[in-house]
């Protein structure tokens, strides 16, 4: 063989080898893989890391024990499951599940919404910002308010005679007992009290109109008769502790929660505006 031929053969072989190596690198995951697992990872699946911290948390969550007490078999089982999950997630992306599967889409929407407000949940606002928010919404920060009220109902009298609400109110002011009211006026106590109630609970039990009257009564006071659809009501206030404004220091935790919710709402709105602003949305003529 001439030396020129040998050179050509070697050149061809070299080119083929180069193409083969490039092909393996380009068309197989293994070809582009590094064989070094970074120290913070437990494994690499097609170069996607499974973080060691996630792995440890998963082992502890699965077996409800500190990682140090887990066995080699348990760790292997968890790692196998995580690799399985990663492989199937990757396959899911190849199959375009985000484009077609409603559950995947819903999860993605929730995750992106969460991401939009991540800064608000992570950032610790300054005390000045919190105090400014508190000052702006001061009326929302008060103690709960409690009351102990007795509610007497008068049905229509004999022969549908009008109930004597004023008489009941006067008797209550004079110190009549529920039994005396029942005998003299056929008045019955509704919802015999189990003790003080928070304002919100009293409002639910009494209804809006009676509650508005009740919360204005001082301790020991008796209301004027109130005619409602079910009869005439008379209220006697045993104890009324109205809500008291809370100072910033006392309400700080609630202020912080409300502040973060307000910032989250703003961020979500801004994110939505940005997404809509850059999107090309075309709607069918029949739906416009």
């Amino acid at each position, binding site marked *: 063989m001439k030396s020129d031929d040998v050179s050509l053969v070697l050149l061809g072989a070299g080119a083929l080898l180069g193409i083969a190596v490039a092909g393996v690198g380009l068309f197989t995951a293994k070809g582009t893989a590094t064989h070094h697992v*970074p*120290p*913070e990872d437990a494994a690499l699946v097609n170069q996607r890391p499974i*973080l*060691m*911290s*996630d792995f*440890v*948390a998963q082992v*502890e*969550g699965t077996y*409800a024990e*500190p*990682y*140090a007490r887990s066995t080699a078999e348990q760790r292997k089982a968890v790692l196998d499951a995580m690799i399985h999950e990663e492989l199937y997630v990757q396959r899911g992306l190849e199959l375009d599940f985000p484009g077609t599967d409603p559950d995947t889409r819903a999860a993605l929407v929730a*995750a992106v919404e*969460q991401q939009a*407000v*991540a800064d608000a*949940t*992570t*950032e*610790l606002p300054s005390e000045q910002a919190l105090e400014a928010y508190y000052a702006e919404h001061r009326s929302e920060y008060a103690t*709960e308010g*409690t009351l102990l009220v007795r509610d007497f109902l008068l049905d229509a009298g004999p022969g549908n005679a009008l109930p004597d609400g004023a008489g009941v109110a006067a008797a209550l002011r004079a110190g009549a007992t529920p039994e005396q009211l029942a005998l003299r006026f056929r008045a019955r106590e509704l919802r015999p009290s*189990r*003790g*003080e*109630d*928070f304002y*919100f*609970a009293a409002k*639910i039990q009494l209804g809006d109109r009676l509650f508005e009257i009740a919360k204005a009564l001082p301790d020991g006071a008796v209301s004027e008769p109130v005619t409602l659809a079910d009869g005439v009501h008379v209220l006697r206030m045993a104890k009324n502790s109205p809500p008291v404004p809370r100072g910033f*220091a006392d309400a*700080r*935790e*609630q202020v912080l*929660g409300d502040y973060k919710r307000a910032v989250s709402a703003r961020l979500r709105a801004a994110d939505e505006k940005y997404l809509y602003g850059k999107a090309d949305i075309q709607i069918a003529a029949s739906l416009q």
Partner: protein
Amino acid sequence: MGRVHDVSRLRRRAALALLAAAVLCVWGAQALHRRVMADRLLSVFPDRVPGDAALAKFARDQAAPLYREYCSSCHGDNLKGDRARGIPDLTDRDWLYGSGEVSDIERVVLYGIRSGVGKGWNLANMPAYAQHVPYRRFAIESLTPGDIEDTVEYLRAIEGRSADKEAAARGEKIFQGRGACFDCHGADARGDTAIGAPNLADDLWLYGDGSRQSVFESIARGHQGSCPAWFRRIPAWKARALAVYVYDASHPPRGPG
């Protein structure tokens, strides 16, 4: 004369170049050492780092400025927290989440508590029983002021403090029944570190001072403290260094004997 000047100038320049090279070498060696140690820090299983003196020292040294930057604004320079704001003391051994190992702390550093990050600790909130809807995720009945007072007495009783026995008996029924307190805090009220439910049978308080008024307010208004997730801002090895730093604070070295 000119030649002498040239030689001395050359010598000065050579000395400066040597100095610069030495500084560069030192800086490079330090950077390399830091890189190697950071890799080692990540390679070792987190809970074993405190047992490796060199690694633990490296972590502590690296973490001190990180702690000041990311954590001290809430937990304080002394890591003691703030009970008025429900910020935990990191120097005791009372852990809300996990068992206080480096891996547990690292998870909090990376993903936070109620941070909204899926990998974080997002369970559970303390319901506000003085509200119409105490808890959004789960149907729980509201309690009356009297119910809450009874529950407070029950908690005092199980802590071994002075309590009204009759009220405590009523409170126990609420705790184990319609209040559903047992669901998070456990039937023995010793809490559950898998969901951050504090132990109510010890004398450590996350919020307030443990007085009747303070416990009443916790039950009435609920709590949902949070810790930010730092995984987007702090690289993995620094998060681990911070975790070691916090672990050290709650596990001071024992003195001789």
